[in-house]
Structure formats: C-alpha cells, structure tokens
C-alpha cells in the first residue's frame, strides 16, 4: 500500500491506496477531535479506484505528525473497545446460563 503526499501551497493531502470509507471516516473523526487541526476532510476520487484522499490542515504542526497521532489514538480506542467488549462478554456468560447449541438433526 503506497501513499503520496501532494504538497500544493503547503496544504498536505495524503493519498492512501487500498483504503475506503472504513478507515478514512474513522480517521477523519479522530482528527477532528484534535485541537491542532484546523481543517480535515477525506474524499474518494472515484469509487472504482481504491484510493482515498485525506486532507489535513493544521495550526502550525506538521500534518504528518498530527495524522500519525490520530492513527495511534484510533488504535488505542480500538484496543479499549476490544478489552471492554471481552470483559462484557465474559461477564454475560458467567451471569447467564449457557444457551444450548442448536443441533441439526
């Protein structure tokens, strides 16, 4: 998977290949929570090509670093989701009687 950053007038756009709304919308959400970001959006140039353009405009910091931080945050959020979910499922299994498996006759 390649990426290229097209710098036109110092407003970096990151073009990510082999990605779609799944990652791009999540990253856009996390980026918008960051106070260093003044503008963030993603677009899909054509649905047949598997690319996403993510544009990050910051209040001074390097856009690459801000994007990396956002991805780290998203990863941390995923890990937290996983651990909370696992704990919840274990708790549910302990408090509920195990449902019997449907047996094919």
């Amino acid at each position: 998977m390649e990426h290229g950053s097209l710098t036109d007038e110092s407003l970096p756009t990151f073009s990510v290949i082999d990605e779609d709304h799944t990652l791009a919308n999540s990253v856009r959400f996390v980026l918008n929570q960051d106070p260093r970001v003044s503008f963030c959006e993603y677009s899909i140039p054509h649905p047949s090509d598997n690319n996403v353009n993510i544009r990050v405009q910051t209040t001074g910091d390097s856009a690459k670093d801000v994007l990396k931080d956002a991805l780290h945050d998203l990863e941390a959020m995923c890990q937290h989701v996983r651990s909370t979910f696992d704990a919840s499922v274990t708790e549910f299994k302990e408090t509920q009687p195990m449902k019997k498996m449907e047996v094919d006759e």
Partner: protein
Amino acid sequence: MTKKGFTSALDMPDVPMGKLPDHLEVQRTRVVCKADAPINTEGIQYFGSYATMGIDNSTPLERFRKNFKVEVIRLTDDEMEFDMIGIDAAIANAFRRILIAEVPTMAIERVFMVDNTSPIVDEVLAHRLGLIPLDADPRLFEYMSENDVANERNTIVFKLHVSCKKGSPRLTVKSDQLEWLPDGSKLHEVAPSFPGEQQKAYTSFSGSQMEVSKKPLGVMHKDITIARLGPGQTIELEAHAVKGIGKVHAKWSPVATAWYRMLPEVVFLKEVKGEEAVQLVDKCKQGVFDIEDLGSGERKAVVKNPRACTLCRECLRGVSEDPVELRRVRDHFIFTIESAAAVPPEVLFTEAVKILEEKCERVISELS
C-alpha cells in the same frame, strides 16, 4: 447583531454558564426524527464547536475510555445483540463494514469436475458449492496467493461423488454428502502412464490436515440442497476451499448480516390524557406506550419501552399537533451480529476490531 445597551444572551441569568441550553444539547446529542425525515443527522464533530459557550466538545482518549461501555443483551452460538455506548457513528460503521467485508472465512473456490451429467450446469454447480458455509476456523489457515502451492495450511479438499441408479426415484444431493479429504487431493494433474506410477496431485499435503485443524472439517449445515439427480445421472467432483474476505466475493462474508441501530428515545411534547392516551397506546404496535392511572379516573400516557420503537411514526400520523418527539441517541448503538461462519459472533467482532487496528498500523508504518 448586538445593539448598544443590549445584554448578550450569555450574560442573561437563566442560561447556565458552561452548560449548553437544552435545544443545543438536543442538537449535539440526538437525531430528531420528524414525521417526514430526520433532522440533525450530521454530528457536530470537531473540538471547537460550542467553544464560545465554554464547552469542550472534543472526546480525547481519556474521556472516551471513561465513558465507553458495552452491554451484552443476547448471546448465542449464532447471533448476538449488544449495546455500545459512548462511541461515534464513524467507528461503529467501520466495525460494521469490516464485519461484512473484511473478516476472513473459508469457502470453496476451485472445483475440479470429473463427471457431471446432472441437470445443473458445471459453473452453476460450482457457484452453489462456493456459497456453502464451511465448518472450518479461518484463523488456523493461511491465505493462498497464485504462486503458492496448495498445501494443508491453505487449502481444504472436499470430494463429492453421487449417482442416482437407473430405476430409482430422483435423488436430492445435500451438503452432507461433501466428504472431507484430510490427506489432500486424489486427482492427478497428469494421468499416470502405468498403474502405480506416482504423479503430482493438485495439492501437496505433507501430512494429514487433522494436525492443522485438530478436529474433522465439514459443512456447517448438512441439509443444503446442492443438486437433484434423475435416474442414471452422476456428479463426481473435487472442491478446494481457500481463505478469503467478503470484499472479493460475498461467499467469504462471515455474517448472515451485521447491523446496528441507534437507541430510540421518545419524549412527550405535551401531556396526553384520557381518550387520546388510549388511542396513542393503541396506535403504537410495538408497545412503546402504556397507560398510567393518575387516580381520580384520570389516565395519562407514558413511555414504557422506547427501545422497541421502530420509527414507524404511526403515533405522528393523523394528528394536527405532534404529541411526541421521536429521537435517536447519537452515541448509543444497538449492534446485532448474525454469524454464518464457524466462528461465534463475539469472536467475529473481536477479529473485526483487530483488523481496524491492523489498518491503522499499516498506514502508520507507511507514514514513517
């Protein structure tokens, strides 16, 4: 526009500082569903919104960790329903998309036809075989690319050899007649030139596949009709199953489907009493409303079970003034996952979250 001598709304005593007024709080946290269409669907999603009110709208990691909750409502081997509270639609949707299209499973990909005199054409039969869910844990297997040799770590081999004898009634070929070959393919790429000559088979298994899978492999449901044979017709074929993801072909999708809805909230805009209350309770077929006796013969309608609301909007139909407002809570998702694979639904969700983490990792490593 403020005029000279005019007090700003923020200084007025009845607007609490640091807290949003009610209508803005609704705009921030709820999607309002009017009779014709929902409003407020776009989330006000950046840290600076409401900054002038002194509200910090961002959700930094610590706040997310503190507020995020998961509650499991129902869990069986095939499906589960659980609530995720405190997460945004972008990420919930990412999980849903990954569950449908990017969690891998095993499915039949290549079919080697030896004999097919059935009324089902070769390619249609192969297509049907591909759609049969297999009872094989995809985590034990590896992906197979074009240059790879088919071995016990990336291919599962099934055999189907059925024939209907002349004079017997029509035979239905069901999925339980697919026989698992743990030692690999029995078909040879080149016919042996003399009996007993060892020729290369289509797969190179170095050992029995039982070592990889630890339990016999087969199909998940034994009663799927594959074909029907008339007297004198035969099907003999070998089917090879590989690991893949739903994005490439829907046969590799592990979920019957996975979906979410936001938690409904029903709020009374005015008091509904007496005959109107009874009518309201009748109108709602999901049992959202109930009558509460106030004493002295007065009856009032109350919200009993907002979770059951399907937004049919029957309660808003035919009335001049809306008695209720139907809303959805923006960060509370009721997820339902129906597993169609050998993996139980809670494992599917965990795998989906892991896949999102891997995507982040890939982009991070590319950026560095």
